[in-house]
């Protein structure tokens, strides 16, 4: 299934742009990329999801991983989510630990 992601690191912030779908077929590849951030003094992980259609539970696990494993006090942002993604995030209680924004403001 089509999906693309891109990671840029600037001043302790990892900016992750996702498009297509974050699902079982590609969540593992994204998790592998995010693992390379461990130990790099990352304080924020910002997921830009304007072009993402949906996230399945496999994708949610990657976002939980970002919060749990990249650093002790890492803040995780979700920017530009559509209604499908916002619903998934809210129904699973993940809105309790994500900063949810329409446009990125740090």
């Amino acid at each position, binding site marked *: *299934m089509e999906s693309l992601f891109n990671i840029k690191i600037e001043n302790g912030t990892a900016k992750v742009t996702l498009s297509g779908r974050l*699902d*079982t*077929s590609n969540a593992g590849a994204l998790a592998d990329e995010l693992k390379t951030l461990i130990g790099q003094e990352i304080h924020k992980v910002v997921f830009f999801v304007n072009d993402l*259609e*949906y*996230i*399945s*539970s*496999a994708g*949610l*696990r990657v976002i*939980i*991983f970002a*919060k*749990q494993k990249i650093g002790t006090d890492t803040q995780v942002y979700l920017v530009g989510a*559509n*209604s*499908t993604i916002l*619903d*998934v995030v809210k*129904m*699973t*209680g993940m809105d*309790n*630990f994500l900063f949810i924004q329409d446009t990125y403001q740090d």
Partner: protein
Amino acid sequence: MASLKLSASMDNFDAFMYFLKSQIENEIIEKKTLNDILIAGEEAIVNVLRYAYPDKNGELELIVDHQENPKGVSIELIDSGIAFNPLERLEPDINAPVEDRPIGGLGIFMIKKMMDELNYSRENGQNKFRLIKHY
């Protein structure tokens, strides 16, 4: 009605999802409804591919059917693997702090939230799990 029966291997995940999407995307205009069905379908398919056949090879049959009055789509998954009733799974604690959350356990919870009707039966050594969404 259309069905696809393939070996229950993660190698066939994309084929099952492509089949599901191709059967419903022209019928369902609202993007969010389409996405909800695809997400729930993915969770159900992955459960069978990963867990139904721990010790042997087997197949998954995916049947997609359209309904009228009320309009809806039905997705049925049939496998001959170990008996597993997804409706008996305990719900995860979605209010738990993130540090305490096991990485996993969300898929069936999401199916329950996203679909309108769920039926499970065990007949003749087969799991039959049917998911219906009205639109």
